[in-house]
């Protein structure tokens, strides 16, 4: 019988622990498929974050290290400096990358560290039960902003892609989403470009993925996907913010 579809070799057989309707699963699969397509699984070393994706080391079918909260870019730096010819990536959420790990991500980018970062932005701290993240939108209700995020108290959400794209060390930065098939396909292309940037030794690459959190947003999966499109995308415009690739595929 002809095989028309099979699960990517980039993922293990361990079932995901993610909530129903959460888009982490899609993003995991895209990253894994790209690593398989680029034939780098045998030389990939991933770094898992603290946050919803804390068990990512159980899912990606390659060598992995589990980092402390926010420190994944520093851990990845250590790995890459030992194995410059291996493919090193981090997979981080918004609390991990844009709050506690801000110094690590900014300086990894500034150094032009030749690593790939998958940044999952779901506008809240998912694992700890839906607190305000640096990316929580103005007016958004979370357990720590029960009256909605107010600029006079909490300031403004951070646009990480735009911020990092100002740094000379960055090679490829794109913001994508996965709220429908078209955007899933675009996200896959973007992730491929990010890994290509690393393979071409161009420097730091990051893909920011606008992701859903139906559980903590208090929505059905479909409502949550619509919320990304209607509320997140206007504040976090999709697109390529930096591209130094030799040949965009």
């Amino acid at each position, binding site marked *: 019988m002809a095989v028309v579809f099979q699960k990517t070799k980039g993922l293990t057989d361990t079932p995901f622990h993610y909530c129903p309707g959460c888009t982490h699963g899609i993003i995991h699969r895209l990253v894994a498929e790209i690593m398989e397509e680029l034939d780098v699984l045998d030389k990939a070393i991933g770094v898992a974050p603290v946050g919803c994706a804390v068990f990512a080391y159980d899912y990606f079918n390659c*060598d992995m*290290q589990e980092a402390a909260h926010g420190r994944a870019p520093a851990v990845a730096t*250590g*790995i890459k400096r*030992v194995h410059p010819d291996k493919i090193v990536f981090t997979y981080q959420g918004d609390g991990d990358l844009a709050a506690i790990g801000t110094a690590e991500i900014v300086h990894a980018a500034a150094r032009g560290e030749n690593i790939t970062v998958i940044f999952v932005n779901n506008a809240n701290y998912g694992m700890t039960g839906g607190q305000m993240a640096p990316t929580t939108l103005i007016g958004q209700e979370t357990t720590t902003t029960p009256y909605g995020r107010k600029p006079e108290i909490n300031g403004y959400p951070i646009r990480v892609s735009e911020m990092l794209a100002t740094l000379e060390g960055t090679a490829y930065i794109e913001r994508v989403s996965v709220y429908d098939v078209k955007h899933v396909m675009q996200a896959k292309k973007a992730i491929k470009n990010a890994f290509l940037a690393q393979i071409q030794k161009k420097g730091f690459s990051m893909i920011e993925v606008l992701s859903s959190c139906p559980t903590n947003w208090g929505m059905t999966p479909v409502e949550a996907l619509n919320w990304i499109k209607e509320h997140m995308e206007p504040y976090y415009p999709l697109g390529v913010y930096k591209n130094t690739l030799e040949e965009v595929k």
Partner: protein
Amino acid sequence: MAKVLMKGNEALAEAAIQAGCRHYFGYPITPQNEVTAYMAKRMPEVGGVFLQAESEVSAINMIYGAGGAGARVMTSTSSPGLSLMQEGISYLAGAQVPCVIVNIMRGGPGLGDIQGAQGDYFQSTKGGGHGDYRLIVLAPSTIQEMADLVQEAFDIADEYRNPVVILGDGMLGQMMEPVDFENIQKRKRDIPEKTWATTGRGNREHRNIINSLYIDPPVLEKYNYQLFEKYAKAEKNEVRYEMINCEDADVILVAYGTIARVAKNVMNIARREGYKVGLIRPISLWPFPKEPFEKTVDTAKAYLTVEMSMGQMVEDVKLAVQFKKPVYFYGRPGGMIPEPSVMLEQIRKIAGGVK
């Protein structure tokens, strides 16, 4: 090569390179800055990597990544920097990543000052980070011993898959002494291959994972027991100390690192005055050497612990002596050096005029 005259900070850096360390990550802080400067110059010469991190927090996590990837790695810092590294150190111990961490201590608490001090004994030996873990802590008292112990530290780290701390102080880091790199004193060991390192899967059938997360309590409990089996082995095999003139001693001085040198001179002066004084110098601060106290507790009248702090190691001395004999303390904090004359006075008082 004959002996070379080197600063402690430079000697420890060179010793690391000679031990095969090719990856160093650090952040500037006084009084250890010669280490970073030496590494920045020397690493490119030997094809190694020197990287100045954006903080001690990042430096220790780069150590985690590089050590976990199988390299011999080292970082160095001074007291406030070591405080910042505690999170990473707990993860290093938890994930069993071998590495060498040098702390050239200065006066504290807080920003303190930049003179040599010994106020980080608790932090290093009792675990400054969270959770049940142990670090192997070695305290040299000469530049030669610094070079010896740094090289030994890499071997110990690899043998036990555990971070090893070299605990020096600003004075030891800054002073110059002759060092002989050709006759490094270290033990022969069977160092296991790093089959666990994340090097990329290659042809390996299984994936390697560096991790300290065990979400299931019984599993984490078991993992802790495994760690402590390893620590028990270290307690059995990695105890180091020097013991001088203790056979007939009435008063035994106890001191480590820089101040042990002063204590040794005081011991000699007291001996010339006719007092029977000995010295116990712990070299491994963890595991703490209990043996020299067991050997002397029946014959000695009392112990006098001298530290460049308000008294931290003295607690371990009391535990080792088990309250069978009095344990006195003299120390000065803040980067001030305990006075030999005060030590002598205390010895005379403790000896009670008996020579």
